[in-house]
């Protein structure tokens, strides 16, 4: 049994975009391998473009984090052992800690697991996330226990007399 394919009379006259999306069944045609390669290369160009947009957006966001900001008095940090501040914007909580060795370190307070606020534990000498028991090393901010996989972003701190300034956010 042979099936004859009817010719669509109006399809050939239609513009190209209408030929690609025909209403009548007879107007439909198979996509050739050449067309598919062409279409996929176009998709590849779009994907590469999207990747560059992400890269440019990333560099613009990173550039905004170099502004210097006063975060508090060093004497307040000595009393409590840790100091909470916001850097680079008011929506970014951070924590500065004076380690038992006397080193001044600061990190983003947002846990890299599920964004809970980390706190300083004197007993463990580490930054601890109370939500899922994530523990971060105080020296580099790297995760040492619990579910977090990425280190905490580090904030560079400068001490000028009794004043503390955040100068840069390192990712």
């Amino acid at each position: 049994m042979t099936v004859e394919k009817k010719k669509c009379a109006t399809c050939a006259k239609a513009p190209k975009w209408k030929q690609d999306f025909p209403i009548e069944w007879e107007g439909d045609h198979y996509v050739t391998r050449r067309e598919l390669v062409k279409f996929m290369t176009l998709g590849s160009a779009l994907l590469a473009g999207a990747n560059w947009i992400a890269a440019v957006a990333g560099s613009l966001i990173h550039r905004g984090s170099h502004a210097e900001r006063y975060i508090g008095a060093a004497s307040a940090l000595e009393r409590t052992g840790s100091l909470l501040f916001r850097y680079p914007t008011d929506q970014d909580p951070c924590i500065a800690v004076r380690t038992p060795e006397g080193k001044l370190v600061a990190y983003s307070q947002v846990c890299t697991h599920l964004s809970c606020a980390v706190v300083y534990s004197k007993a463990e000498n580490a930054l601890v996330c109370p939500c899922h028991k994530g523990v971060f090393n105080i020296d580099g901010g790297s995760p040492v226990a619990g579910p977090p996989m990425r280190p905490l972003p580090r904030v560079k701190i400068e001490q000028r007399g009794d004043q503390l300034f955040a100068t840069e956010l390192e990712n």
Partner: protein
Amino acid sequence: MSVRSQGTTLFSAILILVGTTVVVQLWLLTVSTEALLSGQTKTLIPAAAGSSLLLLINACLLRYVYRFDHDVERESQE
């Protein structure tokens, strides 16, 4: 091997290659988006460069397809 069957095999291989590179580009975009949202901006430029390299490979393969067709057409006219 005739030109037609050669072309069929070649275009199937090219299609598989292009498909694979597009999947790798999709993965790169996923990684970039995740890195951007988590503030890990160091990986973004290498990922974009890698994606551009894959685009270049795809463009070269597409050019090859067009040149192959052009050569076959010219030979049939002669």
